[in-house]
């Protein structure tokens, strides 16, 4: 039987991986996947906490909302990636640096 600690460990690693991905991947889609990882870490946390609090409905609900919103965000983000590709001819985020300083 998995303990709460082990869930938390997994999510912490997932969260860290997510942060690692968003800060290192140069491909915009890859970066967005990192964001998904972070959100998933949160999502799993919610479910785990809800489970260990006697299947509290609120926690489960939150994780569902996270999934929904992640999808919405991804939709917008991908649209913007496409737009970026049209402008810059690449989806490498390192290229999009005209705004700085």
């Amino acid at each position, binding site marked *: 039987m998995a303990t709460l600690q082990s869930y938390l460990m997994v999510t912490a690693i997932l969260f860290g991986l997510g942060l690692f991905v968003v800060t290192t991947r140069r491909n915009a889609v890859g970066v967005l996947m990192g964001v998904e990882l972070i959100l998933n870490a949160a999502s799993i946390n919610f479910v785990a906490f809800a489970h260990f609090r006697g299947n509290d409905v609120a926690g489960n609900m939150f994780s569902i909302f996270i999934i929904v919103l992640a999808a919405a965000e991804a939709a917008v983000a991908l649209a913007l990636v496409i737009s970026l590709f049209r402008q810059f001819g690449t989806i490498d985020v390192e290229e999009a640096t005209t705004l*700085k300083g």
Partner: protein
Amino acid sequence: MLNMVWLVPILPLIGAFLNGGYSFSGKKLVRPLVHTIACGAILGSFLVTLLTFIHFLGLPSEERSVTVTLFSWLNLTNVKADVAFLIDPLSLVMMMIITGVGSVIHIYSIGYMSHEKSYARYFAYLNLFCFAMLCLVMGSNLLILFVGWEGVGLCSYLLIGFWFHEKKNAVAGMKAFLVNRVGDFAFICGTMLLLWSLVSVGQGTVTYTELKGAVHLLTNQTVMGFPVLTVVTLLFFIGATGKSAQIPLYVWLPDAMAGPTPVSALIHAATMVTAGVYMIARLNFMYSLAPDTMNVVATVGYATAIFAASIGFTQNDIKKVLAYSTVSQLGFMFGAVGVGAYTAGVFHLMTHAFFKACLFLGSGSVIHAMSGEQDMRKMGGLKDHLPITYKTFLLATVAIAGIFPFAGFFSKDEILWHTFNKEPVLWCVGVLAALGTAIYMLRLVAMTFFGACRADEKTKHHIHESPATMTIPLIILAFLSVCGGLLGIPEALGHLVGWEHSNLLESWLEPVFAGPHHEVEAGHTMEYLLMIFSLGVALGGCYLGYTLYTRRQDIPERFVRRFPRLHRLVENKYYVDEIYQKFIVDNLLRLNQWLALFDQKVIDGIVNLTGSITKVGAFISGWFDRVFVDGLVNLSANLTLQGGRGLRLAQTGRIQDYLYVVVAISLLILFWRFS
């Protein structure tokens, strides 16, 4: 009469105002109008003074001190000072001198300045000077005295630099003012110390009449280990050395001769420079309580007397000789007040005013005749061309030399007599100085009036006696030089002719200087002996001076040839003093110019030295201000900007760098929190 006494200073002020306004307006010059106003003003105040004097004569001596208050000037908790005039025998003597001699010089100026473009401005300054000088002597407290004190300094500045288009004159005026300011610095400090010391004993005042009753409370007070009264009186005396051209602050006076000659007569001989003597005489009750200061005053006075007399020999500029003579005579006056002979000091002040004014005006007449030439080596033989000038000049010279029965004899002799009683060493110095005076004055007369005329042809052609406006004042002053001494015939002499209270001036001034007479009277026999001795010295000096510079000019020349190494000693008479002075100056400034003219070195030395020190200081602080104070501000501004630039670099435009920052800072916060 006393309710009119305020007119005495106010009339010249009005005159100054009118003429000043006239000059300022730039309207066409109407000379008679100008000098009528100016002379009318000063004559008016002379008249009022005279009437007051007559009124006073009718009063018993203890009632001869009246304070006329006009209004309150300062009325604060501890400092109370009225604009008020103290009319007493001392101030009346001074007023008489100022308005009397002043009137004469005003009239003289009509002739002397007749070609001057800035005629109205000149008379405005002259009147303003009289006003300030009258404030100085009439003021009933130290603050009013100081107002006059600085006021005369201002007028001195304005008049020395009267012909300001020549830089030399302007600089001379500035020097006079600045050197005086150094003295004033001490004066202010003295006033502050005096006031607060008195406040601390519950008697805070600056008014003479109240001071007189209060200063004895300070006898046991000290400041930084020194008796308060000694410090205060010394500080005042430093102020006096500035105004009255004593060592070490005399340097401005010879330069002050850059002004018009009547100015030299009025300000730099007869009146302003005697302000220091007046001040000490006025504060005699305080000085008498500070014997140490008295010694200093007397010593400085006599030192100045002989020292300045020595310089008198080396000068060829007629006015410079007189200037050094003035310094020397002022030294006598300080010597007098320094030994407690206040009456003698004031007496000499008065006689000096007569004969020195006469000498200056006479020299002015000479210069006028010589078309502005002041170098005596280019004069000579003028006695036939300028008979009145010559005669009056000669009389004044005899007076200053101290020949009986001319004015100088009585006053100088009284000083020497008191000095002898107090301090025989100083007496010797005094006698030597008197001898010197006689010699160089005769040298002056000889070089100017006797022998052959050494002027060039053009100048020679123009030589003429001065107009009546100039000669009449000369005659008046010569008359006073001759008879002025009779006001103070010593009792020893009066005794001879059966006149018990022959010293009129002494009994007149007695209420002011009443105090314990602590001198030991050496008896009449001694006094006669000394009198004859000093008369002999004076006569000898006159003879020597006359002979050496007229008939036997070969003696100094042979002397020089026989003793080449003594050449300079003889030429400079009191070489010891000069070496001493040169030594100081050269150490201070120019080691390589041992033989440069003495006073010039002093001027360059002290004024330029202070000038360059302050300039260096000013430069350094200006630099400091730019580099450090401002620099610090700019530095912090720059740092801020640099910070901005640095932070701007962090905004790379790369989204992942932004995320790095988020992660890194979040981790940092967690570390900070949990470590």
